[in-house]
């Protein structure tokens, strides 16, 4: 049995428990339930970290070289991003929706066919370690731990994806809450979540993180492509879709500058943006042929 898969199973169980606890907090609004939920989310984050670490040990390189590994990274970043947000804003009920997204992601990762999960050596195109780092670390005989464009590109992109996923969750909550607020209806279930105005602002803040990270991901991809493929841009479907996604979020940001586009329309744009992210991540990998190895 591969250790990383053991940790994965463990994390999966905890994500289900975490989601249940947050949902329970939402419904019953008991403080202790909220505390348990946060604690479980931390344990799940620890387990996810262990999946990544053990996978790095098993494969001998950064755990970002196939679809399953990148899913774990996405889950890790979403969970970490959520916990940071909870720590800053102290709104716990949002956890129910974010953790549902994460659990769904866990489920889809676990259903991947084995060839997407296997421990594999890096193929030639993915070997991109930074020379300066390799030579620096080799002074202490640690050169195997040097990272490169693969690691940087994937991690920055996935932090972006995670922020967009959180923004998506918040946009859904916004639409729910706004619907009842505008009808002046009090719905007990929705009292635990913050006002729609706050949700709108938080959804925007998540995009304000995701947008630059996606940009750094795109630029680092371009730098890498300039080493690997003979040019910084070749309109490969993955590249193009990342640009499409980026344009949608750029439209979102400008829509906010022209006041009228906050609230509902902004929420729809955020949802559209996340749909593009999902296609960028899974759709392109499975439907459109291209130069990208995976993900």
């Amino acid at each position, binding site marked *: 049995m591969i250790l990383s898969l053991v940790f994965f199973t463990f994390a999966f169980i905890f994500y289900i428990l975490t989601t249940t606890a947050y949902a329970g907090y939402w419904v019953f609004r008991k403080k202790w339930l909220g505390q348990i939920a946060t604690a479980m989310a931390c344990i799940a984050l620890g387990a996810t970290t262990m999946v990544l670490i053990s996978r790095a040990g098993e494969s001998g390189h950064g755990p970002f070289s196939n679809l399953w590994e990148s899913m774990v990274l996405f889950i890790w970043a979403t969970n970490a991003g959520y916990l940071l947000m909870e720590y800053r804003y102290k709104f716990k009920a949002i956890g129910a929706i974010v953790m549902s997204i994460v659990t769904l992601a866990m489920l889809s990762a676990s259903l991947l066919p084995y060839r997407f999960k296997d421990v594999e050596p890096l193929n030639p195109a993915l070997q991109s370690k930074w020379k300066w780092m390799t030579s620096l670390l080799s002074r202490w005989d640690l050169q195997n731990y040097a990272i490169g464009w693969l690691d940087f590109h994937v991690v920055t992109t996935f932090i972006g994806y995670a922020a967009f996923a959180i923004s998506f969750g918040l946009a859904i909550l916004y639409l729910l809450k706004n619907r009842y607020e505008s009808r002046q209806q009090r719905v007990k279930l929705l009292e635990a979540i913050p006002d729609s105005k706050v949700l709108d602002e938080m959804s925007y803040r998540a995009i304000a993180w995701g947008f630059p990270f996606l940009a750094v991901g795109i630029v680092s991809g371009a730098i890498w492509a300039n080493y690997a493929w003979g040019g910084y841009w070749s309109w490969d479907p993955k590249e*193009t879709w990342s640009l499409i996604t980026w344009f949608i979020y750029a439209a979102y940001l400008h829509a906010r500058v022209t006041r009228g586009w906050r609230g509902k329309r902004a929420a729809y744009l955020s949802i559209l943006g996340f749909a593009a992210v999902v296609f960028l991540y899974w759709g392109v990998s499975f439907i459109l042929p291209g130069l990208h190895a995976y993900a």
Partner: protein
Amino acid sequence: MAENAKQAAEGMDARWYRTLGSGIWAFLNSLKLTIFILIALAATSIFGTAIEQNAPLQKYIAEYGETWGNLIIYTNLDNMYYSWWFRGLILFLAVNIVVCTLERFPPKWKSLLEHKQERFDPKLIEKFAHHETLSIGASPEAVRDRLLQVLRKKRFGTVSSGGGDEFFIYAWKGRIGRLGSDMTHISLLLILLGALVGSVYGYRDSIFMNVGNTVKFSNESFMLRLDKFWIDYYDTGHIRQYNSLLTIIEDGKEVMQKQIWVNEPLDYKGLKFYQANYGLSWNKLEEAQLTFRHKVKEGTEVSFPVKWNTATDVPNSKYSVKVIGYTADFAYDEEDNLVYSKSENPNNPAIKIEVYEGEKLVSSPWLFLNYPGIFPAIPDSDHDFVYTGHKGTWFSGLQYSKDPGTNIVWVGSAVMGIGFIMAFFIYHRRVWIHIKGGGQSTEMKIGGTINKNTFAFERDIREITESVSSN
């Protein structure tokens, strides 16, 4: 009369142009247009990922049918990222950025420079979404000093005025954040400029080189030689890396040698060589295996290897042979009298050899691996050569490209990074405070704005008010 009419017509004309001009200007100055262009770019880009790009035209007809196929070709969807309309859309975005910046930047700059308000109407404070009034049991002067201290500690810039029992404080922080969006926009223009330079002055192509080959590039003064090609494997047998050892030769001198692999190109005078491809050569061998035999007598065969282009003595005979040609998939063009390879695959391997008797060239036949002995190798002789096998040699597929716009793109990307940090993580906060004493307590009004992230601002205001009220 005529004068008047002419003048009137001129006036009309001028007005017409002016209104048209300002109409276009207003149109280009609109953020709604920006949103529209961004969405249009996103939406149209999808076509290019769904429809194969740069395929032969017949393929579109075959795949999509007559009507749709022709529509695709007619609208350039087969090469859409380079089509006039897609480029037009990008140009439109650039013009939109320029107009927006020209229109908005100067007043913004001015208001950022001349922002200080030493005196203001206290009623202004209540107009802000974030404002508070509280009364404090301390003298106005003490409240002012305490506030200034707190604001400075929070790294706000401050000006204050007033005296006696009435004071005004204006404080600000993060003005530079306002320029983040402008930096971002300028960076986009830079990146587009880099792409433009690249598309005008850059080029990209690929070559296949056999080990030992030297090629000359038409636009460059130097030559490139492939010294070696090899593959590294993991212990598990997976391919680890493809490598080529390349030498640059300029003015007859070897000026540079470098091992390249996927992710590690060679860069010489702006021309970059990338490891892109490899395979078994279809027009060269390392060595061929030949059999020399008597046409009728049994048991006379001797088999021996012959290295490429190297004269080799045939054992126990007066002959020597040389392998001078190879094609993996032999074909013959009768019109041009040319031998060529139909494909890269060894479907019909053939070699051309030269047979010498001493110094004299006796014959130079083609021999076929799949058809041994169909043509005699040496005319009017009892002896024959048969081609029985070979050891291939690698070719290395190299891509090469030159793009003088690349560095402009990198500069643009760096500027964009700075712009993002300024736009998203430095918030422009402005705080107005009015302090007025009256009897035992002092009344303090505080209010202000932040350009984004109202949460952060609420925290600021809370911390400032707490610091004075806790006295």
